[in-house]
Structure formats: C-alpha cells, structure tokens
C-alpha cells in the first residue's frame, strides 16, 4: 500500500471527520465536503507531516484523493525524502 495515500485517508477520517465509507481514490475533496479553507488546511497538515512544500495554489476542491497523494509523492521524490523510505518528520 502507498503510505502517502494511507496517511491521507487517516488524516481525512481522523482530523477532518470524513465518513470513512466515502473515502476513495477517485473522491474529490469537494465531494467530501471540504470547502476552500479546509482544502488549504489539508495541505498545511500534509506539509507539516511530510516535511515538504506543496503547491497551495493548486489546492482546489476538484482534486481527487489520488491526485493529492500524487502531489505529495512527487514532492517527496523532488526533496529526496522518498529515498529515505518516505519517513515523515
């Protein structure tokens, strides 16, 4: 399993209190009832956990969970964190 996606699922369920049954890779953040501020809050949370900067300008409610996870993974690769086993801060 992808640790980035798994962590995203955990954050959405625990912090953002999204119904676990609605969380799927193709769910959009908007469909999970995250408004624009909540989407940025999600990005702040992910940045803090993974220790990499994310493009907040691209943080919209239209993104799917898969796309969000890909954005994080791409940054982890750029920052070389993935080479260290994807260990979060």
């Amino acid at each position, binding site marked *: 399993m992808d640790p980035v996606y798994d962590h995203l699922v955990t954050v959405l369920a625990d*912090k*953002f*209190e999204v119904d676990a049954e609605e969380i799927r890779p193709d769910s959009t953040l908007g469909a999970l*009832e995250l408004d624009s*501020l*909540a989407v*940025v*809050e999600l990005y*702040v949370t992910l*940045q*803090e956990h993974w220790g990499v*900067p994310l493009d*907040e300008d691209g943080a919209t409610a239209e993104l799917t969970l898969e796309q969000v996870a890909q954005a994080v993974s791409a940054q982890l690769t750029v920052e070389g964190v993935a080479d260290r086993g994807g260990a979060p801060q």
Partner: protein
Amino acid sequence: MSVPGDDAGLAVTGIGLVTPAGSGTAATWQGVCAGRGTAAPDPELAGLPVGFSCRVPDFDPRAQVPGPRPWQHDRCTQFALAAAHEAVTDAGLDPAARDAARVAVVLGSAAGGVGTYEEQFRKLTDGGPRAVSPLTLPAFLPNMAAGQLALALGARGPVLHTATACASGAAAVALAALLLSAGACDVAVAGGADAMVTPLCATAFARMGALSRRHGSPARASRPFDVDRDGFVLGEGAGVLVLERAADAVARRAPVRARLAGYGMAADAHHPVAPDPEGRGLRLATQEALRSAGATPADVAHVNAHGTSTPLNDRTEAATLDRFFGAAAPSVTSTKGVLGHTMGAAGAIEAALTALTVQHRTVPPTANFHHPDPDAPVVDLVTGRPRPQSVPLALSNSLGFGGHCTVLAFRPAP
C-alpha cells in the same frame, strides 16, 4: 420586570453546561453539590509556574459538538456549541420552527480562541507562513463562538459578543435580557465560554501572582473566602441559558426553571485589574439589579459570589456584601471552589447554577473552606454540604479585569 406574575418578566427555559465537573447540567449540579475541588495536574502546563488546572473532563468534540466540522472550531467555541445544544434541547425549542429574525445569540468570552492563536503563532515562528492554518482567524476571533452558534441554530436576530473579562458571560445574559425587554427578539440564547487553560494564559496569570501555587494538593487549591487561599485555579467551560419573555414561555407551555428577575451592570473605574476597595462597581450593579427586580436588599436570600479564591477579590467582595446587606446577611456560596475560575464562562455558569439553586431550593457549598478570614468575613457562607433553602430571590455576582461588574437576580418560577 418588577412583578413576578405568571406572565411577567423573563423566563429561563433552558440550561446547558460544560464545566470541569463534567458535561451536562446534571453532572455539573451534582459536582458542585458534592463540594469537591476538580483541579488536577495538567500535562500541558508542565514546566510552567503553575502546573494544575480545572479542565473539562473527557470532552469529545466529535460526540458533543453539533453541526458539521467541529474540528475547525477552537475549544472555546466547541464548549459553547455543546452547552447551547443542551440548553436549546432543555428548553424544548426548535429554532428552525421559529422566525429566525427573532432569535438572538449573545455569548461572552474573555479570550475567545486564544489557544488557536497561541498554537498558530508558534507555527509561524517555528515553521514560517506556510505552516499557518487558513482557519486561524475563524477559530480565533472572539465573536466566532456567537457566530458559529447562530449558524448552528439558524438564528438571524441580533448576534453579539460581550467581552468584559471574567464578567463576560454574565454581561451576555444581561444584554440578552435587555434585548428581550426592548422587544428586539423573542428568544435569546445567551451565555459564556472560554478555553484559556493555555501555556501563555496560565503563565501570564502566574506572572501576575493571581494563581494558586498549592502544587501539593491541587484539588484543595481553590478555596474561596478561606483564610489560607492563595489565588485562583484556571478553569475552562461554557454555560448557556435560553431566555424568553415569561408570557411567551407560558404560551408555548415551556418548562421554566427560574425567572431572571433583574440585572445590573456597572464599573469600578478604580484600577485596571484590582477591585475597588470600596466595591463601588459591585454596589452599583447590585443596586441596579434589585431596582430592576423591584426588590430591596432585605429580599435577597442568597448570593452566588464571584469568590475567586484570590486574597484581594474575596476580601473586597466579602466587605462589600457585608456593607450592603448588613444584618440581612443572605446565604453566600462560591462554586469556584469546585469548578475553579472558568473566566468569561464563569458568569454564565454561575447564572445557571443560581437559577438551579432557586429551582431546587438547594445551595451548593463552597468547597475547601476550613477557616474564616478575619479580613474577609462572610456572615453566612454555605460550606461542607449543600443546604436546603427556599430562595425567593438570589443574586449572582460577576467581576472582571477592567472593573466590570454584573449582577443577575433570579426568582423561582411561579
């Protein structure tokens, strides 16, 4: 408001409480009647000058806070929403069935979402701008408890925030009464909330010398009017009352817990934080509460004192009570012995407890009182165990930094 007839004055039709004695009116009433201090060591305050507090135990926002996304609120707003939900349910009120424009919300808070503010400022200094939550301001701004409650209730009448430090919750109840008396609304959901048990607030109060340092026995640290008191214990929570004109409550056959018979607001204009040694603000607020209730000092059977357990407040308040009431000597209690000082919530929580006192004809005791202070004598302080007492008229005192004084008067329901 002067005639306590069946359809005159204001009715308290609902109460909701979230306090260090527990979530819910029943848990809180039971806790204050048991008369045991709730202060305990606080891991979040470890390493600071005072390491204990009165926390709301086992508060679960997900289970207790109605409405979507409770995680986005500061703890202060979470307390307010949970207490308001209980109060509105207690009142048997369906806000959605009311004319939204006639429903008011008035909530007091000394510091609003100060915990969010502290946390996000730390993130800014530690991690830079990108670490700061975009939800900081909606969580921090002190008015947001009232705003979020209006959103939760669908209330579109006057929605206001009062900030008069530790008198904030009482001022909110008084302002709600003014709105109802002026015809500006038909229902007012009013109270106070604070969540100031934070590292900065606790340290700042300690630096003022305001907090008890009784580290060896925190549960006995808050001891209002006791000769060995050495400061207050920082607490948190919320209290909310549903107020309606009595005629409206009668018309909808609402349960009435008590009557809000009068209210008085005044100020010391003496010192930024120290009480006036002459108690001028408290005396004026008491006089106005009694005038609006159509009562005299001799009518007052009971006073829920501000009684913080600081040397200065209790000495000044005791002297003011003694001068004002003289031989009439109403029974006096301070529920802060059990609950600590919940800041802006205190005035609303104590308003609710005073309403319950007249409803249940029972005065909760002042916890941890062992030896009277010759410099702060209270003629008839209720201590040890709850006292059965019929209370035709009771006052609740609230005083705050800034010299703010609010006194609320309660009568039993007819």
